[in-house]
């Protein structure tokens, strides 16, 4: 059911950003991979909610996030992102954490159905 809903969705401006980024930085897997229903924290829009499905970094990143209670399966909200590849702020429960752009691009999220539209 979920797969059907998420099929190939990507907000228009993300597409535009991916095109620009590709031009600037060459092929970037984290931007182009955008596997239909999976977005990285970087690709999410501020205010969107989703569930963490994968943390693509090493053991260190997973452990740091885990200590804050941010782990696979958790519902998170993206609060904000700073301009020019700045850090992403996310909220899990009543915890807010700021992650650098690189880290944020390694956290993959499945958007909630109602946030898809």
């Amino acid at each position, binding site marked *: 059911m979920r797969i059907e809903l998420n099929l190939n969705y990507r907000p228009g401006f993300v597409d535009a950003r991916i095109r620009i980024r590709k031009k600037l930085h060459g092929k970037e897997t984290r931007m182009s991979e955008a596997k239909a229903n999976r977005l990285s924290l970087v690709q999410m829009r501020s205010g969107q909610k989703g569930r963490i499905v994968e943390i693509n970094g090493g053991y260190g990143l997973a452990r740091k996030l885990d200590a*804050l209670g941010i782990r696979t399966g958790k519902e998170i909200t993206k609060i904000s992102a700073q301009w020019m590849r700045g850090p992403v702020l996310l909220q899990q429960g*009543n915890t807010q954490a700021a992650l650098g752009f690189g*880290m944020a691009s390694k956290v993959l999220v499945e958007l909630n159905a109602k946030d898809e539209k």
Partner: protein
Amino acid sequence: MKILLMGNPNVGKSVVFNRLTGADVIASNYAGTTVEFTKGSMKLDGRRVELIDVPGTYTLEPTCKAEEIAVEMLNDRVDGDVIINVVESTNLERSLNLTLQLLKRKVPAIVALNFWDETKHKGISIDDKKLEEILGVPCVPICAVTGEGVKHLVERLKEAKSSSYKYEDEERWHEVGNIVDKVQNVTHRHHTWLEKLGDASVKPLTGIPIAVVVMFLAFKVIRFIGEGLIGYVGEPVFEKLWLPVVMKLSSLMGSGGFLHDLVIGQLIDGEIDFGQSFGLLTTGLFVPIGAVLPYVFAFYVVLSLLEDSGFIPRLAVMVDTLMHRVGLHGFAIVPMLLGLGCNVPGALATRVLETRRERFISATILSIAVPCAALQAMVVGLVGEHGARYLAIVYGTLLAVWVLLGVIFNKTVKGESPEIFLEVPPYRIPYMRSLLKKIWIRIKWFLKEAVPFVLLGVLIVNLLYTFGIIQFVGKITAPVVTRVLGLPQEAVGALIVGFLRKDVAVGMLIPLGLTIKQLIIASVVLAMYFPCVATFTTLVKELGLVDMLKSAAIMVISSLVVGGLLNLILP
């Protein structure tokens, strides 16, 4: 018996600590490390017990140095010691992760459910009785800021016991989830205004203006308090009360002679001038207490407020992108802000950065281009009286140097600069008693560090003059000082003394009658050329001797280049 206060960072541990302890609080470093913790004592059933505020930790599987120390302190406990696990009620799940790890260690523990009052605003209800039943240790709801429940916590301290709660480590989060499901009930609620403000100050569109306004206000408030204290307290006390005393002493000592000049200093037109006389009891006391302390106090009031309200982590997020340009990440703003008060705590705070590269870059640009409050107070007094635009040149030059050196370091210094990763705690109204205690500890530290060094500086200045050493060094260094920097030979004395205290060094410029151009150059060079001795020793400890020597070479060279350029450019 010892009591260890343990919990996540930002859960109000230090407020609980301040509630429980008296005035005998000391901050110290954990043996052999640079991680700081606070220690105090409290009365329990008629005897004194030691209370330790362990550095905040999210987990007992450490992810950073401070967490390693927390675990070590836990391992160091002896039988009879008790753990107070401070838990953030509004963040039960995350907090219980640590609680379960603590319980597994079989230590006598008691859980303090802090921020109990906040749960109501946040639509959270927690069944503390049930939690106590499940965990098998006492669970006491408290609100440390108002003091509610703290007495109850103390009463129940003797009930602390080790728990028989069992679980598999791999299943810990699962267990935590089960417990939370059983004891916590969350209902819908509206965001509080503090939360709305919190979110607004990390979104670029609203956050950047907020940060600018806050920093502007901070600057205004510091000037208002600082100038007010100087005008209404500092100067009257020195001019009306202290001046007659030292004048009398001066005439008793015969208004001249070696000893008189040492204690009272030179008389200017038969009068004592606190800025120029340069005696121990005149300038030696006036500089640290009359001229500098008001600004130091004002600075620490504002800084402590910004820290305790939760603004600093948000500022760190906002400036992260910019800080990456100088090879650092957002959190490196903390040592820079602290450095504006005094470079020593600033240098100590570079520890929060993980890699050697980051520490080298931040410590070097800090000690070159971030002027401490003592230096600033004197420069504002001396240069500022000629007009604010000249002050702007001094600050503008230092800022430009900070950025430029940072960018160069970012390109040339080897090593890694990791990304920012930090918890952003909610905005909270600061707890007055903790705030005042913090400001007091900082002021006490300033007085203890500054006053003896200023007196020593003044003493040495007098001796150097008496024995003609300053005149001698002035002659040797004349080509550099006069040709490159365009300063008179005597200014070399200020550069020598600047190594001891920069505020005294600026004071030495007063009698020289410098032009405004020379004042600007001298101020910038004094800020940049070398750290004062207190900062220097701290940096040697933090960076190691080799890196410090490299850093020092950069300081000397860049100050000569910048001073020389100013000499060429300024009309």
